């Protein structure tokens, strides 16, 4: 018996992406504005990496009495104590705000929490971040995002034209902005691993964008007379099977991690799943249409002969 391959995307799709992209621009504009507004009003739920403070996760022998713990630990006078269920009814996450007395006070606070909870609970993890380190981590995180955006800008400029580079970076900013908007909305704890997720989103979104740009450049050389909008539509349709299949495969792995990977990594995985959706959307509806807005040179024959030879396209 032979397996007859099943196509997820039918051949020769002629989806009018550029016509839709007007709506896409509009939608993206609104979502970006909304994200900025959410970030400004709600703000991110910064974790201890950036704010300093203590996070303790415990496992209790019986389902935990969250309210009881809240009043017990709240009475210790350690400032804001946040208590939530962590993955299962027996697992509890306790977050203490940064203590006024600096690093030593943080340690004392942990000791007090342990004293109160006693020895019947299992301490799964304890994290204490002092004020100085958290300040530095914030700086490093911002630096990382800025550096990688510039790195990408430089790479795309080198490989393509400046319009492409700008299109790529605009879609990156779009992805980053929408991610931050969503995290503000749902109050996902924003820590260093989320920054790592954002950088990965940047990498993924770019991967998608580059594949599309590659095809656009190829068609620009091949179909010199085709109007730009039709050419972009044609390019996007021709890589659509790949775009969808790769996104699906990446999502399968990420969802698998989200479901089976445990509570510790869930926020990180969530951020990346969102990033795959946004990144796929943005490379089609943001990065490519930007080329229409900016225009691109149509005569690619002057392009170095060596590069064409290397690409070896008929």
């Amino acid at each position, binding site marked *: 018996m*032979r397996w*007859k391959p*099943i*196509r997820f995307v039918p051949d020769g799709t002629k989806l009018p992406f550029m016509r839709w992209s007007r709506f896409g621009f509009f939608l993206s504009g609104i979502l970006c504005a909304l994200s900025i507004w959410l970030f400004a009003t709600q703000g991110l739920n910064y974790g201890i990496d950036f704010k300093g403070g203590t996070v303790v996760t415990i496992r209790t022998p019986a389902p935990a009495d969250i309210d009881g713990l809240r009043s017990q630990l709240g009475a210790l*006078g*350690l400032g804001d104590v946040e208590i939530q269920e962590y993955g299962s009814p027996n697992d509890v996450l306790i977050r203490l705000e940064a203590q*006024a*007395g600096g690093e*030593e*006070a943080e*340690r004392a*606070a942990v*000791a*007090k929490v342990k004293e109160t909870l006693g020895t019947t609970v299992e*301490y*799964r*993890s*304890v*994290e*204490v*971040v*002092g004020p100085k*380190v958290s300040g530095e981590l914030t700086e490093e*995180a911002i*630096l990382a995002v800025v550096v*990688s955006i510039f*790195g*990408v800008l430089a*790479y795309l400029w080198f490989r393509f034209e400046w319009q492409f580079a700008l299109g790529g970076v605009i879609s990156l900013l779009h992805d980053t902005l929408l991610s931050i908007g969503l995290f503000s909305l749902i109050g996902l704890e924003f820590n*260093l*691993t989320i920054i*790592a997720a954002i950088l*990965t989103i940047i*990498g*993924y979104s*770019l*991967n998608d964008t*580059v*594949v599309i740009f*590659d095809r656009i450049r190829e068609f620009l050389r091949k179909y010199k007379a085709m109007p730009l909008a039709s050419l972009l539509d044609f390019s996007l349709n*021709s*890589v659509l099977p*790949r775009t969808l*299949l*790769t996104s699906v*495969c*990446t999502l*399968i792995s*990420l969802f*698998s*991690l989200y479901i*089976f*990977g*445990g509570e*510790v*990594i869930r926020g*990180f*995985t969530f951020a*990346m799943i969102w990033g795959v959706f946004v990144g796929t959307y943005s490379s089609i509806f943001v990065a490519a249409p930007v080329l229409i807005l900016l225009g691109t040179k149509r005569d690619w024959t002057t392009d170095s002969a060596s590069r064409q030879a290397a*690409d070896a396209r008929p």
Partner: protein
Amino acid sequence: MHFSRWKTIAIFVVVALAALFSLPNVLTPDQQRALAPYGIRPMTLGLDLQGGVNVLLEVDRKDMTAQLQQQLASDVRSVLRDAKIGYGGIQRVGTGVTVKITKPEDFERAKTSLSGLLQPLQGNLLTGGATVNLYALTEEQGSFTFAVRDDGLNTRIGSAIRQSLTIFAKRINGLGTTEPVIQQQGTDRIVIQYPGLKDTKQLLDIISGTGKLSFQIVCEDQPTAANQNPPQDCVGYPNKDDFDRLLAEKKAANSAAAPTEDEIRKLPQMWVQTGTRATVDGADLTDAQPSFDQNNRPVVTFRFNQKGAVRFGKLTAENVNKPFAIVLDGVVQSAPVINEPILGGSGQISGNFTVEETGNLSIILRSGALPARFVVAEERTVGPSLGTESVKAGFIACMVGLVGVMIFMFIPYGFLGLVANIALLSNLLMLVALMSFFGFTLTLPGIAGILLTLGMAVDSNVLIYERIREEWKNGRSAMSAIDVGFKSALGTVLDANITTLIAAVVLFGIGSGPIRGFAVTLAIGIFTTMFTAFTLTRLVVALWVHYRRPKEINL
């Protein structure tokens, strides 16, 4: 699409080696030990998967400056006194001290003597190897001012860090058999990673004590109220019981109004002489052990080396029947009366100790005193059970993800989908093998990196297959479509992967522990993906074309 014989063999050898080197990760510990001598070992697990403590210590700059200032004040005093130069009081100003010389004719002589206190320090990389003075000396209208120089202080901190690394290593080795990581981080920090520790308290107790021990004769005058200034040649220290009690009260209150540790220290309970003292640190001791005294109370017994024994003997012989204070890290532990000269070179430190405290104190004393005080800037502990669960969960997630992706590659591509799946499996093997062989650390985000690689690795196959399909639809023959398809898709594969590599490199540059683990797996995953796309997938397809000579492409 032609592969020479040796190239074909080389590719299969690489895959076989990958399988061999990733093997230990699924073996039992005994089997792993048997293979270890051949360099075939499992991946190193990060602390988040293994369980353990990660502590970031930072030199307490303020404390160091304060110590230097105190030292400077007493040095200036003794230098001027030795040179018989009259001075009008020594004042502490900013980070330094100012001294006024009484007679103008002594000024030049004072300058010469005081210049001896500048403390030239051997430079390091930061200062370009040049010698740096710890202090700057300025003169103004008959007075001299010493100030701590920033570059001098940095050099001092640098050497303190280097010394502390060995001392921490000695102390932590006293804890158990696991191999800890003790490394300098940045200019003024030390990171300590200790896998498999359940309770961090002992570790923190052992590394946070400075371990400065001195024996000082108690002054005749003693304070009658708090906050009194000690007479000349005396200095005040709190005694252990009061200090511990006040510290505990402060911790219980835990409000901003409670006195800080420094303030508690300034409520001295006992004045001791600065002149007659024997400072002792690890260098002067040959041994220190926890023990019990005749009343069965926990004490630490110690033994001096030759030099220390002579000094200690002299001190005790000259001060028989006087109480002498045992001062540890600025706190009086106890103040027994010297009944007779102690000449044997051994002694004991009594105080209100618990057994645990004497154990830790012995470790601290044996390792010697830290040249600086450290504060815990960051502490992360993961319990061993959480780590084990994370490994299990990550493994299941990888398997489920792998199977899912394989199914989704088979559905649209059939046989070529199977080829892609072989490539995917080899990719995974190579990733694990490289991580194991080079001893890269696998962290929980690293597992996420592996899963992300799984998803993205098939991208190269998808790009190639789609291209082949297009070429075939455009009217090429099967053979030519495959040939052209590979050639033209590879450029795109390269471009797409390099962009992800940029993100991975940035992540590695900024990240700490776990995130670095993620960046490493991501980057290695990109390399193995490119390798399989350019070699293995092509080779298997080439072999298939060679033997089956397909007339059409079933994609």
